[in-house]
């Protein structure tokens, strides 16, 4: 049975980028307000789930050839790597460092290694959620 869902596909192409913007906002707002790597990763995974629901697995994997198990593994490596990076400088495990830098366009900016740790957490969440959803939905 052929179903005409052109409205849903057109809306999805627009809403996908709105959800991605929300995910990036939540990721960077996590520094000193609600948000962070875990919730930003969950919103990012929900955007990918919307694409997988509206289109099909074959189309998305042709346009976005990413193995999400590798994404999860790389995120875990990144998170634990920032923890072990503190051991190199003689600090305790998972000690995070921050400092203020003068960046030409943004002015005085605080750069910290917590952002790298949170990015790893976000990658783990995206990889694990998408892998679980694709594994339980495969029927052949």
């Amino acid at each position: 049975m052929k179903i005409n869902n052109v409205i849903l596909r057109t809306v999805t192409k627009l809403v996908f980028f709105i959800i991605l913007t929300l995910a990036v906002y939540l990721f960077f707002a996590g520094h000193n307000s609600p948000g962070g790597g875990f919730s930003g990763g969950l919103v990012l995974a929900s955007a990918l789930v919307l694409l997988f629901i509206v289109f099909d697995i074959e189309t998305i994997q042709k346009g976005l050839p990413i193995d999400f198990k590798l994404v999860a593994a790389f995120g875990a490596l990144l998170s634990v790597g920032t923890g072990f990076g503190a051991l190199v400088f003689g600090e305790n495990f998972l000690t995070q460092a921050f400092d203020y830098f003068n960046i030409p366009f943004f002015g005085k900016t605080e750069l910290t290694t917590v952002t790298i740790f949170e990015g790893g957490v976000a990658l783990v969440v995206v990889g694990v959620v998408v892998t679980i959803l694709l594994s339980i939905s495969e029927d052949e």
Partner: protein
Amino acid sequence: MVQGMLVTALTIYGIAICISVFRIIIGPSLPDRIVALDMIGVMLVSSMAIVSVILTTTAFLEVILILAVLAFISTIAFSKYIERGTIIEYRRDD
């Protein structure tokens, strides 16, 4: 005056959410339950907006955005389950 109106609206939203939960429990068919779930999502978004007006804070605005996104995706998933029988297809037929 305005405070009383906001609290009254919040109370009416609470009663409406209770009625929708009743519809989800006894709903005779699946589409009734899905419409009731979507209604609960919309009413939670509205009551969150009223709560942030009452408390004069902007801390709940992310809650509104995420609830709206999740209600949208869950409604699409349930509708596709009714229409097609599967949620995520491997290959599109048309």
